[in-house]
């Protein structure tokens, strides 16, 4: 029976009334197992409350759901938000921000940082790209969306220099490539001048944006072709500097960005000099990726649904990290540029492509998927999702990522103000992904909490945080049950409302995650359970 412990956690823990102790957060590695399969639900003085799941609403929880993409280049529509607020779909005109709550701005480092020490978010930075950035951020905030970032340094296949000119002018060494009729410059990633300038950028970026209130995640190393960490070019002409560069860039990101998740592409030739080669796996890539994961990186892949780029190696690697790190899926096929190539992968049409991407993403248990940008809003990937696979858009909201709810809670309804009480509660995850509280940037900051709400204000009078449940262990199909004992902590006699919530322990136990339950939920996110008379 002991092996059941990992499925159905049966724990009793004394929780101190009031704010949780930081030390309690370390409890997720413990297993205080009691007899499984028989929990103390019907306790004297307790009432069992059954809760129904809410399966379909967009809850806007972090690191789950659809991601809307934007760039900062000339292809971006001046009416970006108006376009997406009135977007064509098979369900009629819709507001895309009702389906996606993350805006991913992936653009040239140059656009974010046109001059040394000058940034697109600065009030006095008025480049056209900076204006676009401000437009995007303002619109995202108005729509209750968080921002994600991706900075691309490499100019290969681009029409602009993606690394700011001041870097080159400072003496950084690099190389010229030709895109169409345009010659563009990229720095060697092992160049010390480049590294010095880029460090300042990341440091200053982090000072402004490394906060979970505004930022959802930061993506990629920004190096290599398209910023996808392949087809890199080093000053030596070979791959000798590769490992040092990976160490440098990963140290840089993890040193400065400590409050929001950071992502690296998992593919088989991380920062090698090769173009993406699906026929061979670079033997050093996997150990390097594991190092980066240990440092705190999460995972993304930008070719979901492309059957020659996302294949067995990628699937196995994703499986090896399931529930250890969240995965972001970006589709690979592009309507505007790949056309009939999709048939090579056996797709009949783009509805079929979307289904293929979706199934691959589902197979990788991803947390987030993408609505990529196309200046032709009636043609690109986002249009395709909404008009050729709308059911999957809704299905991912309902079943992708994570949705957490307690289906049953046994609570004391006539406790004394200083009594020790026991609450039995069971939680489920309705999504195929997971709530990544085990990433170092989150460090188990989200916890289950029970609150006594004031009957008139519906604000918490007392919050009891249960340090035991680790939300990252809540996996679909495996409900987790806890018996939590705590002292009422000297609550004044009177009638209150028991409520449950998922709080952010780094923000004074304010609600951090929305519970996916039907029922009476306060505007802050406390799910009301039952009336309680404290004696």
């Amino acid at each position, binding site marked *: *029976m002991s*092996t*059941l412990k*990992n*499925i*159905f956690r049966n724990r009793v823990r004394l929780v101190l009334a009031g704010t949780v102790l930081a030390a309690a957060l370390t409890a997720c590695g413990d297993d205080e197992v009691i007899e*499984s*399969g*028989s*929990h103390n*639900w*019907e306790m004297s003085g307790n009432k*069992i409350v059954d809760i*129904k*799941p809410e*399966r379909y609403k967009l809850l806007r929880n972090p690191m789950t759901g659809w991601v809307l993409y934007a760039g900062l280049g000339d292809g971006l529509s001046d009416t970006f938000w108006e376009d997406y607020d009135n977007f064509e779909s098979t369900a009629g005109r819709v507001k895309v921000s009702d389906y996606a709550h993350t805006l991913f701005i992936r653009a040239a480092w140059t656009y974010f940082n046109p001059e040394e020490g000058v940034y697109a978010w600065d009030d006095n930075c008025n480049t056209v790209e900076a204006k676009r950035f401000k437009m995007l951020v303002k619109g995202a905030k108005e729509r209750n969306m968080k921002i994600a970032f991706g900075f691309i340094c490499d100019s290969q296949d681009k029409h602009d220099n993606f690394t700011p000119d001041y870097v080159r002018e400072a003496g950084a060494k690099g190389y010229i490539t030709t895109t169409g009729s345009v010659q563009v410059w990229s720095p060697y990633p092992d160049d010390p001048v480049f590294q010095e300038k880029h460090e300042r950028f990341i440091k200053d970026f982090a000072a402004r944006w490394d906060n979970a209130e505004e930022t959802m995640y930061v993506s990629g190393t920004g190096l290599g072709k398209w910023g996808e960490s392949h087809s890199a070019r080093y000053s030596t002409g070979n791959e000798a500097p590769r490992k040092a560069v990976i160490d440098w860039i990963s140290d840089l990101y993890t040193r400065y960005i400590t409050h929001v998740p950071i992502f690296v592409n998992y593919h088989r030739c991380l920062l090698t000099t090769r173009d993406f080669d699906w026929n061979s796996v670079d033997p050093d890539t996997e150990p390097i990726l594991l190092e980066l994961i240990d440092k705190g990186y999460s995972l993304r892949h930008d070719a979901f649904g492309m059957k020659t780029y996302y294949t067995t190696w990628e699937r196995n690697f994703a499986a090896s990290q399931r529930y250890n790190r969240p995965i972001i899926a970006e589709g690979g096929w592009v309507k505007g540029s790949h056309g009939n190539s999709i048939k090579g992968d056996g797709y009949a049409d783009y509805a079929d492509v979307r289904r293929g991407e979706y199934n691959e993403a589902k197979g990788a248990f991803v947390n987030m998927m993408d609505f990529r940008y196309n200046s032709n809003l009636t043609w690109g990937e986002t249009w395709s999702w909404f008009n050729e696979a709308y*059911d999957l858009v809704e299905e991912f909201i309902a079943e992708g990522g994570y949705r957490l709810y307690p*289906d*049953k809670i046994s609570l004391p309804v006539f406790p004394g103000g200083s009594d020790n009480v026991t609450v039995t509660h*069971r939680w*489920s995850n309705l999504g195929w992904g997971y709530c990544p509280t085990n990433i170092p940037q989150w460090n188990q900051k989200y916890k289950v909490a029970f609150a006594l709400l004031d009957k008139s204000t519906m604000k918490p009078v007392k919050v009891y945080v249960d340090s035991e449940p680790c939300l990252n262990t809540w996996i679909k*199909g*495996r*409900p987790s049950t806890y018996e939590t004992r705590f002292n009422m902590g000297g609550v004044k006699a009177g009638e209150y409302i028991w409520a449950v919530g998922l709080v952010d322990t780094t923000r004074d136990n304010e609600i951090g995650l929305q519970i996916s339950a*039907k029922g009476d939920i306060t505007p802050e996110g406390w799910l009301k359970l039952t009336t309680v008379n404290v004696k």
Partner: protein
Amino acid sequence: MKYNTIYRNIARLTAIALLAGTVTACDDEDIDNSYSRSNSVIQLETSSDYVVLDEANPDAVALTLTWNEAHPYGNEFITTYQYQLDAVGSKASALKEYEDDGIYTRQYTNAQLQELLIGHFGCLTSSNVTLNLTVTASFEGPRVVIPDIATASVTVKTYGPKQYLADRLFIGGDAVGEQIELMPTSATSGLYTWTGALNAGKINFPVIYGDENNAISPAEADTPIGDDEMPAVMVDAAKANYWVIPQADNYRITVNMNNHTVKIVPAGSIIELDRLFMTGAATADAMIEIERALEADDLYAWRGELKAGKLYMPLEFNDDIAVSFVPKDKNSHDINDGVAHEFDQVPTTSGTMAAYWEIPADGTYRVVVNTTDHTVTIYSAATDMANMSVSYNNTVDGINPYTQEVTELWMWGGFNSASHDDGLKAGFQAKYKLTQSKANPHVFVYHGDALPRATMSSESYNKDPQPGGVKFLVTNIENNVYAYGSTAEAKRNSKVGYVKPALGETSTLVAGQGDNRYAYFCIPENCNYVVVDIEKLTVIFDNK
């Protein structure tokens, strides 16, 4: 009411298999998947097995389904119900919904089901659709429990425009008396053909499709028949119009379900065929094709050995062999040796044809069918047309006079720049050889790529060669053999002449081994078809 235990068992076994797969993926779980511990108790019941949606009552309940609660496993288990509905044959995704509120029933009005089937699943209007309904109860708890899956299926008849489809198709109306069922020419052709006697009167085509009694009919009442395909609509049989058959006769009917057309023509007036055959005892019952002649689309010809005995000529049209040519005089079986005589079209009844030709004796015969004149000519060896025989000075073999039957003609002249095949003399190319007609041994035909029109002359005294010069030679042994040239003025060693016919124009040939050999035709542009008649001494250059 429907409760399908077979489906349940299949679903149960599938679930076991799926669970087994899941179980093997987890290395630290004790799985109690004993089948005997599961409780399969859900019964899914529907208000009917067959529902006809009523367009006139959109808000009336058309279908109700209910199921009972799954086995109660107690507080330690979470029971989740998922309801799924899908339409057989639809590419649209199944509708799935969780039932978390304990409402173990679903109800659909006529309008809701119609919208679901037509709008979401893309099913056909006015058709039967099989709906598969599934309720799955899943259990999450301290041990693995097999999901309880119940299924049912319901056939739903949608409303709306009728489909142009038929399970069975008939000829109806007072022109036919008792209805006659038509059979499709093949499983996929969408064509129904029939040839037979109709009285003066009215006709349409009753259809049975599912539970519908429809008819293929004209849009307007009492529409006269025409020579061409007529548009036809599928309507309720009670509201169907008719075509008018003007007089009693044998008619050929073609119903095209794909094009939504009907064609009704007197059987004797129009011949519809893709291929023509002959069969009977004279061919040992083999189907021998009589191929279309090269020189005319309305001529079919064959020459070979026949046995004494019965002969008739089946027509293949739209993959069907429904009609045969037989003597117009049904009581005569005479081949009218060498004399063209009329045929008639009758329904083919394999092996039991009452009308036929009787081949009098084993031997070589030529059969020529003219579908414009509606005639057949059967030549025995005694009456058959002989090959033309010509005499000339064969300088190659040193024989003069040399006599030769003409069985081929070769184009020769500057038109091909004196190109030649390996082993042949200058100017001779096999691809420019004319083929002897099987309908008439005096007719030779070229039909192929557009002919070249090079400007060249082999005669040194020809100072003004013209493009596309050509004449026709009876053999390829040399260019000085018996020839068919043009009427142009020409004289050996002094003058080369040309006639410049237009496409489609008939020109006169001059035959012999004299100065006519220097009288050429200029092949007109875009000419890919040449017909030479060495009996009538004519040639036509054309494009076909």
